[in-house]
């Protein structure tokens, strides 16, 4: 049997009287790329937010590496477990710099919780250079609000790549990207798989997604 990295069992989640997910079961194996597809409002983002610790499910189980999660699953725990997420809204603080956004919530700190600003800048610069995300017009000190939509998306993806996830979750990662940039994102996904990591991605462009996904999970109106 293939090794399961994460598994969701009978997950149910509602917001007030909106039933976003009812009894959803799915899994992601080690070193595979899974495409999650479904209509607008089908509950895809909600599902990956449960996996990444943003929302808690109303009922159901979450299994990580063969172990059932006890207690509240949080973003911090997901990060520690090697789950990195690029959310649909990109999760950026636009009045702040690229470097600060990359380390948002996981700042590099030294004595007394003081942030090592220079170190963060250098790390952000190295990351951007390594993944070919450089430009004449911005650097790690640029304020995100001055970047274009695609560039902001680049910041969110760069952040997820920095922490070298074992499960990379991408919620519509290519919506604002040009064809060449989309291809780059797919290359990152393939490279992650090559290194033994897994990818769970949401896409509406099934024709593109077909080329790289090993498997698809279809979410049909919460089911």
């Amino acid at each position, binding site marked *: 049997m293939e090794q399961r990295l994460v598994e969701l069992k009978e997950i149910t989640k509602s917001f007030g009287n909106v039933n976003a997910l009812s009894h959803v079961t799915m899994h992601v194996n080690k070193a595979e790329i899974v495409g999650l597809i479904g209509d607008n409002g089908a509950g895809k983002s909600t599902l990956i*937010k449960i996996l*990444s*610790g*943003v929302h808690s499910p109303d009922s159901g189980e979450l299994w990580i590496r063969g172990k059932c999660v006890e207690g509240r699953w*949080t*973003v*911090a725990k*997901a*990060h520690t477990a090697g789950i990195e*997420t690029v*959310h649909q*809204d*990109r*999760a*950026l*603080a*636009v*009045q*702040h710099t690229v470097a*600060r956004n990359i380390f*948002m*919530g*996981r*700042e590099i*700190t030294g004595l*007394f*919780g*003081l*942030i090592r*600003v220079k170190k963060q800048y250098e790390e952000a*610069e190295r990351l951007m*250079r390594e*993944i*070919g*995300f*450089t*430009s*004449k*017009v*911005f*650097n790690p*000190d640029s*304020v995100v*609000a001055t970047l*274009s939509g*695609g*560039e902001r*998306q*680049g910041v969110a*993806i*760069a952040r997820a790549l920095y922490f070298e996830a074992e499960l990379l979750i991408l919620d519509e990662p290519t919506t604002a*990207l*040009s064809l060449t*940039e989309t291809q*780059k*994102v797919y290359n990152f996904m393939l490279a992650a798989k090559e290194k033994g990591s897994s990818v769970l991605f949401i896409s509406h462009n099934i024709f593109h997604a077909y080329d790289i996904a090993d498997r698809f999970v279809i979410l049909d109106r919460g089911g």
Partner: protein
Amino acid sequence: MSTTSTSLPAATPSRTQPKPFRQWVNNNRRALSALMIFVVMLTIFMILSPRVFTNPITYRSIFISLPISLFVVVPLVFIIASGEIDLSFPATAGITSWVFAAAVRDGWDPFTAVIPALLLGILVGVSVGTLVTYVGLSSLVATLGMNFLLRGIINMGTEGIAIQFPQMRELLFWQIFAGRIDNFPWIRGFPIHMLWGLLFVGLGWILFNRHKFGTHVQIVGDNPASAAEMGINVNRVKIRAYIFMGIGATLAGVLSVLVNQNWWPTTGDGLLLPALAAVFVGGTPTWGGIGTVVGSSIGVGIIASIETGIIAAGLTGYVTQFFNGLVIILSLIGQRFNGPRHR
């Protein structure tokens, strides 16, 4: 990904390094604008009444009450950057300094009397923070209510009776925290608490710009959903900001008792509008996510100088409010040029 179409994957980074000085000016635009407004204002005052505004005694008198405001303005920058507001700090300053004053009157050592006052300030911070986060009240309304509530408790408890400390100056506590410098000839008579105020501003700057806490406060104020998605506990950050506010208000209240050698049931009341004005005049925007500790502290200087300036310029006290309003509006128009609002 997502580079401009002209930039090829280059072996060396192709971006242009902005000049360090330009970058520094850009990063500190808001504080620098506050400084400019302050300098322009003082220049006008000096032209109008050179004798008064070149005399150190004028500044000494401004510096006596100014530090009290610094202790509330620095935490207010945190609160406003976190996307909330606080209108309860005047009563917090009043009730905590009441605890301090009553304890000292009853024979407590002032160094010990500060402790219950600080604990109460922290408790008020936790309560306000909890109402605003977990209970989900609007901070504007919740803190307005809290201000009335706490002032009401003071009024019921004291029935309007003040606590006087005619012998305050003899206490070591007073000499350390509110005394005068008399060892150095060129700043003889300079109020020591101005130094404590500046130290507080310095610590506030570090906390805001270089510490995890201040960074999280700003991120939460910029976009709470993003902060939560990246694992920042939004409610906890906001509660901590209110705790910091409670501590600042306590220090302001205690300092006001020392400076006035008196505690009144109204202590702290006069802080509300000048402190809020100082925060915004100093360049902290109203919409949250960013702020400037140094700028808003300069804002305290701006607001504190107006009244002195007007009286020195030979105008009557009746025009003070008019000029206060004028300076606030003109300053905000000036701050408007510090880049567009991004949210």
